[in-house]
Structure formats: structure tokens, C-alpha cells
């Protein structure tokens, strides 16, 4: 999920399972095909253009099909698109759509639905935040349209006929296909959407589905019910008859519900992982979501690279993941999570190749810090750390404070702020230190590394390096069609970012520990977009 | 005369933080059918406690009846269970309290409050009881009774409320009516009305009344016999004329002497000095001794027994002992005694000069 700054615990990011479809092969659907699960928050909206958070994308993903969808092992599998062709210059993508897909109101799903949806997403009047964010610089003219300088019709997307969709890109985008599986790129039935007006996507009856499930009941804040969409083009592969979702926010409540058999899955916090250790129902799934300390370089001390390096080095990440998180999260030692992208040829993991870019060394950290203070000419420093608001945030903040304060002369004040307020402080760079996170919007190193280019929308550290900018630029333009070179450039960029310039202090790569009833099978976990794919899930209650 | 109630050696105590308060310390008296016995005495002398004990309404704890018999028509109420007492209360003995403002339930209709006893004791139906309630209200002189049964206490004036209280007490034609300062909270004119009302009704129903007050004027008005209480004991008891015109106990002298009479001369009132004793540890000897200007050595050491003055008149003071020196009562009392002998001589009635 893009920009998941808040993805701090197993919470806001929805729930993840360690269930791999590998196990799916073992069983057979048997018994009542009903899945009872929880989510951690109410769905803000089911309008794909307006959706911004993980909960919304999760349930959009379950009820709708885009051009492609994420399958096992994050492989893209055809959905509404049967196949696609890419032009020589990699700028024109032509999708051939299947003809048997329909909306739940009986209308066929056509290329026009995509044109309408994408135009709607960048249309400034829609007020979409993700539309322009995902499409600007990707789809031709998106930027100009979203700033109102060009009519929406100019968007580089066109229905050649009912079942042929042609997309013009701004520049070659190697990962474009993975974008088409993202929620913002889902199709919309124009007639239906316009008929609902303001109410579109707000109630179960103001939603139109074309995916494996459809929402039949939506009790706000309490929960919702999805049932199998019998008209789905791939309906025979869908086993679950019903998914009942309840909103539960307390972990202990969730665990109690799970233990009492009322729900089939429960995400755990560290304390419960400990309690459930040894249970074969406990699954740990690592996610490509990275957490790090963001340091504002406009701050006199944090502008000093030695100071930043000291901060990188002083934190003990092992303790952090083992004791505080204790849910299978792993220490982060770079900007790219492990098991996220692989070398296009050797298939070696990005993380593996670059290895740990930082180490924990308190002595050295202290030296660097002393040096930094000397350079700046200060004895004591007070830094403000924006606190998080998740379940473990308090402990995490307390821990970071204690760790950082090992540096002589440093005092850290924790300032707890609501999530939205933190976003604002981030945007306006009115922070000194903050514990931030990032999850991929698409499967490509660019989604992480692109953040730190000069004036990047989510940079907000004040980091600006011509060299670094040049590397990213090169990877995305010059090497756009040369995967290996591109990959190597990214490797180089990460080293520069973390090792040389110490822009951020990576903390950990998140994992989610979750209890799954043994009879639930075939749930797929995704690294981006919707957290889970329930399309192939089934209940095996032999 | 037929004896209705006889109280023998009644003792009541309260257990408090400070210790045992001996509120009533051995009281003996009797009440005959149809007569009115007034009990006078200053605040805290045990008047209310005595009468509450008769009804067995002493809050328990902290209070308890320590000793004594309460023979009502020959049966000892002191030994009755709470259940048995509930049958007596309101039916054979009923009670009127001092303050008409607080002795009615503010949230219950007047009619219901009168009916309650009727339904309970006379086994009347609701409608019968209501009819009777209206009659009773008319009996005590409340106009427009049929409408007013449905009103609440606050819609009545003080005097009217006290009439309602009387009506409640009279509902079941009790044999004994105990009135604990029933007019103290009222204006003189209204007080006079209520007193008249009570006398009237007594004439009609022939019930006995124990009337508690500290107003000697009221006593003179209502009583046939008078008992004077001091510090938890009856110190003098006799007919109303005996007490008013031939008092023997110095405390009674004090009481009478401290009231100016309308025709008395302008001289100083007779005041009892000091304050009543603390019943937590009552003094040795005569409890009144410390305030008694005629006190003798023996008063400090020994409690005086009841000395008989006449068949109906007794007083507990050593002054009546044969060895006691002759003592002249205060002038105000002497005047009263003179008047008595004058009256006896002339047997005159009617207007006095």
C-alpha cells in the first residue's frame, strides 16, 4: 500500500497471513464455506478513486477485478485483461479484455469502464488524492489534467473498441503492469457511478462489483459481509460462499474472539506471540514494509552526516524486533526490504547483494556523535521525536528515546501526535525525528528509492544530492528497458543513501504474526495493493 | 375509673459513642380510660422517649428498653414481638407528632395516608376506606374533604396538616392516643383550635390521651392529671389542680414560677438556675439537686423516693420527708397555693377578678 506511513503494527495495514497457497494444494474445500475474520478499522470508502488506505484497498481488491490482479508469489495474473502488448518505445500499452466479465448489475465490463475510471481519478473535481499521485508522470497528460490545465479527455487512455484498451505512458515505466493491479486503476461503471452521485461507494447498495465477491451488507463500524459473486467470470475457482468481517481494534479482544472460535484469524501483538509460541496456528509473514527513523536535515544537528550516522549506529535493532515487536519482524539494514525484488538474471535478492549497510556499534556511534557535536560546536542537543499512535508505538518511542540518549549530550523528547497531524508536520517539515514507514506501491526498488530524490513528494528530510538524483534518473530513463543495469544502479543508489549520506536510520522490516485456524486454506498474502487475496481461499473442515 | 395503661419502672437507654445515655430511668404511671394525662418537663427530660417506648418505636439500635413493664389492658407490650406490635399500633394506640410540616409523607396523597391504617386494621376495602377518610377529614374540620383527599400535604396549611395528622391518629378509634407536643409548631390561635378539636373528639370517642408538652398553659387547658418529668424520671404526679395549685416539688415550682401569668405583678420571674444534667452520667442523689435552691445534704447522696401527698398526688423530693425543715415556696407559688385554698374555701367558679 502506497505511502503507508502509518503502517506501524499489524493494525492499520489490515491483516496478513502467512498462509501460502502452497498448502492449498493439500486440502479440499469441505464443510461450510464461510470465513469469519476481523479488520482493524471501518472502510472509509469503497470508491476506488477516493480510497487511500489499506482497508479500502483490501476490500476493493476482493470485490473488484482490474486489468490484472496479484496472484501467488506476487505474480500478476490476468483478470479483466486477457493479454497485453507493449510498443517498441514502451510507451503504448494495448490491453485485450475478456468478453465474459460482467458487473453485478449485468452490464459487461468494457474498455470504456477503464477510461471513465482513470479519467475520473485524475479529474481534479473528483478530489482524488491517489489518482494524481499514482498516475502523474505515468499516464500521459495526467499531471496537466490534474492541475486543471488540460481537459480530462486528453488523458492517455482510450477505448479502441469495447474490449481493447490503449494506454499512452508519459515515459517508459518498467513496473506499469503491477500498477494495473492497484486499486486506483480499477474500472468503474459510468452509468452506475453517476446515478449514485455523492453516495457512490458509501453503502453496500451503492457499490457495483465485478470481482470474486460482492458486498451484501455493510454495517458501518461494526462490520460487513461479502458473498460469492456467482456472475464472476472466474466464479468456479471461488470457493468461499461468504466472508464475515467485524471491526475489532483491541488485540486482546481479537485473541479472545479467536480463542472462543468466533473468528478464524487474529493478528497478534508481540506479547501474544510469546503466549502462543509453539502453536501451529501461529503464522508469521514478513512484509516488504520498511520502518526507519526519518531525520530532518534542516535541523542544525541532523544536517550533520556524522550525527546521522551516529544515530544509525546507536540503535540496537535486534532487541527492538525481538523484545518490543516480538512478532517476527526483522532488523532493517537498508532501504529495500528483503525478499522484495530479485536480480533480474541471477534471481539473488536485492538485500542479499547489498548486504547490511549499517551496523550497531555504540562505541563508534559515540565517537561519531562527539565529532559531530564538535563540528557544530555544541555540548547538548535536544531532539523532538514524533511519536506514533499504534499499539506498540509507546514502547517503541520509549525505546528509541533510551537508545538515542546513549549519545552523550542528547536528550530526546517524545511528542505524541495524531496520525493526520503527523502527516502535516511531515509535509511541512516541522519535525526533527520521526518513526516513519513505507510500503511499496508496486514491485520495484524504485518505489522505495525514488522517495529520496530532491524535492521528492515524500522525501521531506531536506536531503538533496545531485549524484543520487542522477542515479535514480538514470535508472528510470536511460536504463528503463535494461533491467540488469537498472537493478545495479539501484544497488548503488541504496549504498549512497544509507551508507554514505545516512539519510535515514532503518529500523525494522515489518512482519505480522497471525493466528489462523488450521481449516482456513488458500489465502494469499500480497506485498502491495490488497493485503490478502481471498479468491482462492477455502475452508477445509474435514 | 378503669385502668387502661400501667407503666412500671420503665427504663430506656441509648448506646452512643460517648457511652450509655439513660434517657428514661425508671418511670411509673398509669392512664385511665377517657382521661388525659399530660407529661411536662423540659427538653431532653425523656418525655418523647417514654411515649415512644410505649409504642415500641425506639430506634433499635442504638436504643433499647432496659427494664420495666408496659401493661396495656393487662398485657405487657414490652414483651410483644414487632409483628404483634404492628397490630396494636394505629389500632389500639396511636400517636400524633410535634411537627405537622414533617410528619406527613410529602409524596403521598392525604387520603392514602389516612386510609393506610384503615385498610390495615379494619380490613376495609379501598372505597370504604376512602369514604371513611372523608368522614374523618370532616370530623376534624377540614372543609371540602371529598376533593382534598386527593391533594398532597404541601397543599395544606400548617393547622390543616395537623388536623390531618389527628385524623390519621383517630382513624381506627384508638383506645389510647399519644400526642407528642402536637401544637408546639403552631400559632396560638391554631393551637387553640387543635386543642379544642382534640378535647371534642375525646368526648365523643372516650379515648384516653397522653399529652406531652412543655407549655404549662396547654397543660392547664387539656389535662386531667399531670406528670412532671425531670432527667428521665417522673418527679411529681397528680391531678391538674394539685400540680398547679399545690405543687410540692421544687422543680415544679420552678416551672410554674417561670411563667408569668396575665394578672401577675411586675416582680421578677422565678428562674431555675443552671442547666439540666447530662444523662450520660446522671448525678448521684437527686438529679435536680444541683439546680435546687432548697437542696439539702441528702439530695446530694440519696435519690428521693415518691412521697405520697394525697391519693392522687405524689412527689419525689426529700422536702416531703418528715425530717425536712419547713421551707417557704417562692412567692409566685405561694400565690397559687393561696388561690387554691381560697378556691377550696369559696368553691367559686366563673370569672375571677
Amino acid at each position, binding site marked *: 500500500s502506497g505511502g503507508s506511513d502509518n503502517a506501524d503494527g499489524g493494525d492499520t495495514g489490515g491483516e496478513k497471513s502467512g498462509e501460502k497457497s502452497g498448502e492449498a494444494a493439500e486440502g479440499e474445500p469441505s464443510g461450510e464455506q464461510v470465513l469469519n475474520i476481523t479488520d482493524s478499522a471501518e472502510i472509509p470508502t469503497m470508491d476506488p478513486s477516493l480510497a487511500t488506505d489499506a482497508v479500502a484497498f483490501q476490500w476493493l481488491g476482493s470485490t473488484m477485478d482490474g486489468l490484472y490482479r496479484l496472484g501467488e508469489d506476487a505474480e500478476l495474473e490476468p483478470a479483466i485483461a486477457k493479454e497485453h502488448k507493449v510498443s517498441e518505445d514502451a510507451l503504448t500499452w494495448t490491453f485485450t479484455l475478456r468478453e465474459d466479465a460482467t458487473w453485478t448489475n449485468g452490464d459487461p465490463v468494457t474498455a470504456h469502464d477503464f477510461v471513465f475510471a482513470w479519467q475520473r481519478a485524475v479529474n481534479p473535481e473528483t478530489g482524488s488524492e491517489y489518482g494524481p499521485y499514482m498516475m502523474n508522470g505515468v499516464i500521459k497528460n495526467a499531471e496537466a489534467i490534474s492541475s486543471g490545465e488540460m481537459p480530462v479527455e486528453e488523458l492517455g487512455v482510450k477505448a479502441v473498441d469495447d474490449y481493447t484498451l490503449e494506454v499512452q505512458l508519459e515515459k517508459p515505466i518498467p513496473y506499469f503492469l503491477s500498477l494495473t493491479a492497484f486499486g486506483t486503476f480499477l474500472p468503474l461503471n459510468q452509468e452506475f457511478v453517476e446515478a449514485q452521485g455523492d453516495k457512490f461507494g458509501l453503502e453496500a447498495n451503492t457499490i457495483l462489483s465485478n470481482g470474486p465477491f460482492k458486498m451484501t451488507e455493510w454495517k458501518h463500524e461494526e462490520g460487513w459481509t461479502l458473498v460469492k459473486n456467482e456472475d464472476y467470470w472466474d466464479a468456479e475457482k471461488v470457493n468461499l460462499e461468504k466472508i464475515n468481517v467485524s471491526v475489532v481494534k483491541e488485540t486482546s479482544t481479537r485473541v479472545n474472539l479467536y480463542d472462543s472460535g468466533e473468528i478464524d484469524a487474529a493478528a497478534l501483538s508481540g506479547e501474544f506471540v510469546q503466549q502462543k509460541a509453539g502453536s501451529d496456528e501461529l503464522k508469521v509473514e514478513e512484509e516488504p514494509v520498511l520502518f526507519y527513523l526519518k531525520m530532518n536535515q534542516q535541523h542544525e544537528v541532523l544536517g550533520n552526516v556524522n550525527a546521522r550516522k551516529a544515530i544509525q549506529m546507536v540503535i540496537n535493532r535486534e532487541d527492538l524486533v525481538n523484545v518490543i515487536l516480538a512478532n517476527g519482524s526483522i532488523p532493517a539494514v537498508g532501504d529495500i526490504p528483503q525478499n522484495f525484488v530479485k536480480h533480474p538474471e541471477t534471481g539473488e535478492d536485492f538485500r542479499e547483494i547489498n548486504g547490511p549497510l549499517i551496523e550497531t556499534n555504540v562505541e563508534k556511534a559515540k565517537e561519531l556523535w562527539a565529532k559531530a557535536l564538535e563540528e557544530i560546536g555544541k555540548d547538548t542537543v535536544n531532539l523532538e521525536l514524533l511519536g506514533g499512535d499504534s499499539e506498540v508505538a509507546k514502547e517503541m518511542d520509549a525505546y528509541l528515546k533510551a537508545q538515542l540518549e546513549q549519545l552523550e549530550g542528547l536528550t530526546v523528547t517524545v511528542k505524541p501526535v495524531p496520525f493526520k497531524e503527523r502527516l502535516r508536520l511531515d509535509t511541512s517539515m516541522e519535525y526533527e525525528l520521526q518513526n516513519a514507514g513505507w510500503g511499496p506501491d508496486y514491485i520495484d526498488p524504485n518505489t522505495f528509492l525514488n522517495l529520496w530524490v530532491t524535492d521528492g513528494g515524500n522525501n521531506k528530510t531536506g536531503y538533496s544530492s545531485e549524484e543520487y538524483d542522477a542515479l535514480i534518473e538514470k535508472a528510470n530513463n536511460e536504463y528503463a528497458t535494461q533491467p540488469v543495469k537498472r537493478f545495479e544502479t539501484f544497488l548503488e543508489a541504496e549504498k549512497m543513501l544509507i551508507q554514505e549520506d545516512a539519510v535515514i536510520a532503518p529500523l525494522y522490516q515489518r512482519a505480522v504474526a497471525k493466528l489462523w485456524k488450521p481449516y482456513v486454506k488458500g489465502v494469499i498474502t500480497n506485498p502491495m495493493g490488497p493485503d490478502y487475496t481471498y479468491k482462492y481461499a477455502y475452508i477445509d473442515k474435514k | 375509673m378503669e385502668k387502661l395503661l400501667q407503666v412500671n419502672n420503665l427504663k430506656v437507654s441509648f448506646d452512643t459513642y460517648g457511652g450509655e445515655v439513660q434517657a428514661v430511668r425508671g418511670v411509673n404511671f398509669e392512664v385511665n380510660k377517657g382521661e388525659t394525662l399530660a407529661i411536662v418537663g423540659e427538653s431532653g427530660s425523656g418525655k418523647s422517649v417514654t411515649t415512644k417506648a410505649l409504642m415500641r418505636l425506639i430506634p433499635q439500635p442504638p436504643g433499647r428498653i432496659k427494664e420495666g413493664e408496659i401493661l396495656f389492658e393487662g398485657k405487657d407490650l414490652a414483651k410483644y414481638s414487632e409483628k404483634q406490635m404492628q397490630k396494636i399500633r394505629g389500632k389500639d394506640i396511636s400517636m400524633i407528632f410535634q411537627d405537622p410540616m414533617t410528619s406527613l409523607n410529602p409524596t403521598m396523597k392525604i387520603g392514602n395516608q389516612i386510609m393506610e391504617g384503615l385498610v390495615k386494621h379494619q380490613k376495609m376495602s379501598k372505597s370504604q376506606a376512602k369514604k371513611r377518610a372523608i368522614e374523618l377529614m370532616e370530623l376534624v374540620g377540614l372543609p371540602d374533604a371529598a376533593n382534598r383527599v386527593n391533594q398532597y400535604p404541601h397543599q395544606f396549611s400548617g393547622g390543616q396538616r395537623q388536623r390531618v395528622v389527628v385524623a390519621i391518629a383517630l382513624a381506627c378509634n384508638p383506645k389510647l392516643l399519644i400526642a407528642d407536643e402536637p401544637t408546639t409548631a403552631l400559632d396560638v390561635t391554631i393551637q387553640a383550635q387543635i386543642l379544642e378539636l382534640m378535647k371534642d373528639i375525646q368526648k365523643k370517642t372516650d379515648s384516653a390521651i397522653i399529652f406531652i408538652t412543655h407549655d404549662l398553659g396547654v397543660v392547664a387547658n387539656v389535662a386531667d392529671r399531670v406528670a412532671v418529668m425531670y432527667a428521665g424520671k417522673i418527679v411529681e404526679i397528680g391531678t391538674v389542680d394539685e400540680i398547679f395549685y399545690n405543687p410540692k416539688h421544687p422543680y415544679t415550682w420552678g416551672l410554674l414560677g417561670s411563667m408569668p401569668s396575665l394578672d401577675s405583678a411586675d416582680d421578677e420571674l422565678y428562674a*431555675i438556675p443552671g442547666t439540666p444534667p447530662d444523662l450520660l452520667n446522671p448525678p448521684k442523689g437527686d438529679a435536680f439537686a444541683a439546680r435546687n435552691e432548697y437542696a439539702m445534704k441528702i439530695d446530694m447522696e440519696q435519690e428521693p423516693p415518691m412521697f405520697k401527698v394525697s391519693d392522687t398526688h405524689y412527689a419525689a423530693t426529700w422536702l416531703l420527708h418528715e425530717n425536712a425543715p419547713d421551707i417557704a415556696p417562692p412567692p409566685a407559688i405561694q400565690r397559687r397555693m393561696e388561690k387554691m385554698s381560697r378556691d377550696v374555701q369559696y368553691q367559686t367558679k366563673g370569672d375571677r377578678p
Partner: protein
Amino acid sequence: MSKEKLVEIKNLKQHFKTGRHSVVKAVDGLTFDIYKGETFGLVGESGCGKSTTGRTIIRLYDATDGEVIFGGENVHNKKNKADLKKFNREMQMIFQDPYASLNPRMKVEDIIAEGIDIHELVNSPQERKKRVHELLETVGLNKEHANRYPHEFSGGQRQRIGIARALAVKPSFIIADEPISALDVSIQAQVVNLMKQLQRENDLTYLFIAHDLSMVKYISDRIGVMYFGKLVELADADELYKHPMHPYTQSLLSAIPLPDPDYERNRVRKGYDPNQHDTSEEPEFREVRPNHWVLCTTKEMEHYKKEHATV
């Protein structure tokens, strides 16, 4: 008795606003004089405005209308502090409730010395103490009591403390608002005797408010009878008892029980019906017999005169 007027009350009115539109006319046009050295008794049923009259005279309330002239000066015009202070020393009050009238948190010494402190009548703490001890003795208490708190005293003793407090500033006029009605019978005489004795010794003037008519008669030189905020009759004490004219007064007198069984056996109570009055004209306060004033119409006056011509 000298006939020097100490207090003149002229058409005194005290109306309380109790709601937006409702007004209680607690005192509604009182006119009477109090002579130096006398005791003026004020009687009437509960709520007729006796206390209000007393409190208005001593300026606890600002009068709605009318004047109170004390020693030749209008009390209610006094504005400056010094004048007020002087006035406060001249006129004092004794209250009804011996429990509510003493501050439970102050020692007796400080209660009695309050006036002394306010008016700075002594120069040293020793002198203050001495004065307090004197006052305690005057009211029949002793100096050990000075260090005690009010709740340790009986009702009669408290009332005497209240009197000592009033005496501390050596007033010439004392308003006693039902000073004995909350006391036990045996104690009442103590207080009344004390008041009489003090009057003799200090040449005091009293306004004695009560509803116990026998006591009022005993202590008062002249008596005013109040009914619903108005004075209905005013006369010398003996005269009033011998010749009550206003039907309300007659009713009141006939209702007082006396500690005399003989008398009580023969007592006839008179009722009072406010509607029995002649309504042909506004009643006025008229002198029916010398120094005997009654609220009546001319017609009624004739009638009263006739009835009480003898004696």
C-alpha cells in the same frame, strides 16, 4: 416614664420580590414610636412581618419605603461609614435562634469581642479580655467560658452570650427578635430576668418581638399587634389586655393558654374573620382611647369607642 422619643417609625414598608411578578409585602406601612427607656412589644402570628420589621429598623434590609428616625436622624439615609458605625453602636439586636446566632467556629471570647474589635473600643488585648470577662459576668456566666466554643453551651447560656455580644458596644436600643421562644421553659425566665435587669442598669430601650403573649405582656410597657404586615392595634400593655378592641387582638388574646387550670376550664375562644370588617372606607390607624390606637374605619371607631367607654 419620660416621653422622649428614641425611635420613630414612619410608614415603613418592606416588600420582597420573590419572582418576576410576585411581591411579598412583609411590612406594609408601619408607623409607631418607641420611647426612651421603654420596652415596646411586637406580637402577631407567624409570618406577619415581625422579624422583617426589626431587621429593617436596624438596616439589615434597605426599606422599600418609609423612614426610621433614630435619635433624630433618619437611619436609612446614612451613607458614610463613620455615621453608620456610630449608628451600629447605638442599636443592637438579639436573635431568636441561640444555635444559629453564634458562629460555631469562633470562641466565645471572640464572639463577644466582635463589636469591640470592629469599633476598636479597647487599646490592648488585656483590656479586651477584661471587658469580655466583665460582660460574661454581667450575663451570669464566668470567665472560664471565654475560651469555649458555642456548641459546648446550652440554649440559655448561648442566648446570654448573644446578649453579651450586643451589650459589648454599649447600645442604647436593643431589638430582641423572639429571644426566648427557642428556649426551655425553665430557661426562659433566666433570660427575661436578665434582660429586665440590664434594662434597669443600663437604661436600655427594647423592641421585644415575640408571639408568646404572656411573656410580652410581662416585659413590655406598650404592645403593638401586627397582622399581615400592618399594625392593627397599639396600646399600653395593661390597657391592651383589658380592652382589646380589634377583633384580631381579641382573638389572639382569647387563644393564649394560661398556666391556670381554673381559667382554662372557662376560656372562650374568639374566632377572627378578616372579612368581618367594615369595607366602606380604607381603615386608618386611629386613637380610640388615649394612647390606644386601632386600625379601623370611622364607623368601626365609633363602635369601639362605645364598647369601651366604661372604665
